[in-house]
């Protein structure tokens, strides 16, 4: 029973990883790519490690839990730093983008 449940979680995690990577390839802009890929891949990795946490004995579960906490903290932080760096190094938005709050702040 625990085995089946953990395999279901791992399948959901793998599918979320796939969707994030398709977004990384298909979307037109650095910022769109960052949004799609970082959110989907963080959730997918957390689901995958949750499957490992359900299946294993105590030592594996504890380490998987620590890794989940770490990924949940560091993934969005890295994405935020990277998007801030790319907008400060002068990378333009996609030409069909609707709103740009950074430009409005500068005026």
């Amino acid at each position, binding site marked *: 029973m625990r085995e089946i449940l*953990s*395999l279901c979680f*791992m*399948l959901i*995690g*793998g*599918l979320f*990883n*796939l969707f*994030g*990577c*398709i977004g*990384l*390839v298909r979307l037109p802009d*650095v910022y769109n*790519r*960052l949004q799609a*890929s*970082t959110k989907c*891949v*963080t959730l*997918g*990795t957390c689901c*995958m*490690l949750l*499957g*490992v946490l359900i*299946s*294993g*004995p105590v*030592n*594996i579960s504890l*380490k*998987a839990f*620590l*890794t989940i906490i*770490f*990924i949940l903290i*560091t*993934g969005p*932080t*890295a*994405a935020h*730093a*990277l998007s*801030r*760096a*790319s907008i*400060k*190094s002068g*990378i333009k938005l996609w030409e069909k983008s609707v709103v740009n709050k950074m430009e409005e702040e500068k005026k």
Partner: protein
Amino acid sequence: MITFLFTLLLFCCFLCLYRISRGPSPADRVVGIDILGIIVVNFCAIVSFITKLDFYLNIALSWALLSFIGTIAVSKFLEGKGFDE
């Protein structure tokens, strides 16, 4: 089932490598490298699930740490600042 998961993650790795090789700007490449590092964490989790050994999760945790530090360092470099500001 496990083979299907490995195939899925390998396909994700190839998509990331496509973005790393074809990305127009340096920030695209850094996004691809970051996602590739997190997918390696997934591989370590699956290997730990198969073999029931716990030190693969140590590898996963330290790989996530190194990927995070590398992304932060390259984004500081792109921003044009030094490391101590």
